[in-house]
C-alpha cells in the first residue's frame, strides 16, 4: 500500500494540464492542437481520480468515465472536422484558415 501526499498527484495533474495548454497556445497545426486538448482532458481525469482515491469514493472514477466519453466524442468530431478542413483548404495551418469564409 502506498501513501503519497495528495498534493503530489494534483501537481502532476496541474503540470500535465499546463503542458497541454502550452501546446494549444503554441502549436499551429490543428492535429497537434487536438492532441493537446486530449492531454488537458486526461489531466482533468487524473485530478478526479486522485481526489476519488483520497476519500476512497467511487465518484472520482465515475467522473473520469464521463470525461473519457467526452474525450472520445470530441476526438471523433474534431478529427472529422480536421478531415473536412484539410479537404477544403489543403492545409491544417490554424492561421491560414482563420478567415472563416466558407
Amino acid at each position, binding site marked *: *500500500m502506498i*501513501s*503519497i*501526499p*495528495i*498534493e*503530489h498527484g*494534483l*501537481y*502532476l495533474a*496541474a503540470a*500535465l494540464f*499546463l*503542458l*497541454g*495548454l*502550452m*501546446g494549444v*497556445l*503554441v*502549436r*499551429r*497545426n490543428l*492535429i*497537434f492542437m*487536438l*492532441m493537446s486538448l486530449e*492531454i488537458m482532458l486526461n489531466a482533468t*481525469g*487524473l485530478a478526479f*481520480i*486522485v481526489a*476519488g*482515491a*483520497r476519500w*476512497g469514493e*467511487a*465518484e472520482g*472514477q*465515475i467522473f*473520469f*468515465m*464521463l470525461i*473519457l*466519453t467526452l*474525450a*472520445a*466524442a*470530441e*476526438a*471523433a*468530431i474534431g*478529427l*472529422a*472536422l*480536421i*478531415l*473536412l478542413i*484539410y479537404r477544403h483548404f489543403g492545409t*491544417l495551418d490554424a492561421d491560414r484558415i482563420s478567415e472563416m469564409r466558407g
Partner: protein
Amino acid sequence: MEITFYIAAFVAVVSTAMVITRLNPVHALLYLIVSLLSVALIFFLLGAPFAAALEVLIYAGAIMVLFVFVVMMLNLGKEAIAQENRWLNPQMWIGPGALSFILLIELIYLLEKESSLLSSAEMVEPQQVGRALFGPYLLAVELAAMLLLAGLVGAYHLGRREQEEGP
C-alpha cells in the same frame, strides 16, 4: 512503494513535453501513448484499477488509433513538418511557457498550504464503481450515451464525401 508513483509521474511529464514539441505527428502520437500508459499506471497505483483499464483500452487504444488513421489519411508530408518547424522557433515558447510556469508555481503554493496524505489503503473496486454508476448516476450514463450517439452521427455527417454531381 512510493517511488513507482514518482517514476511514472516523471515519465508522464517528460513524454507529454515531447508530445508538444515533436514536428512529426506520428512521433508525437507515440509519445502521447507512452504518456497515457504512464498515467494508467498511476491510476493503478492510486487504487483505481477500473479507470486504469479504461485508460489503456479507450484512450491509448481507441482514441489514439483514430488519430493514427486520420494522420495516415491526411498524408502530411515534409511540407507540413517544415511549416511547423518555421513556427516552432524557441521565441514562440517563451510567452506561454513562462505564463504556464507561473500558474504551476501558484498552484503548488496553494496546494502546499494544506497538507494531507493520500492513503490508497482502500481500493475502489470496479464493482463499487458499477453500482454507483447504475444507481445514483444513471441519468449521467444516459446523457453520455446520447452524447456518443450525437458524436457518431456528427462525425459521419462531417466525414462523408460530398455527393458527386450525377449526369
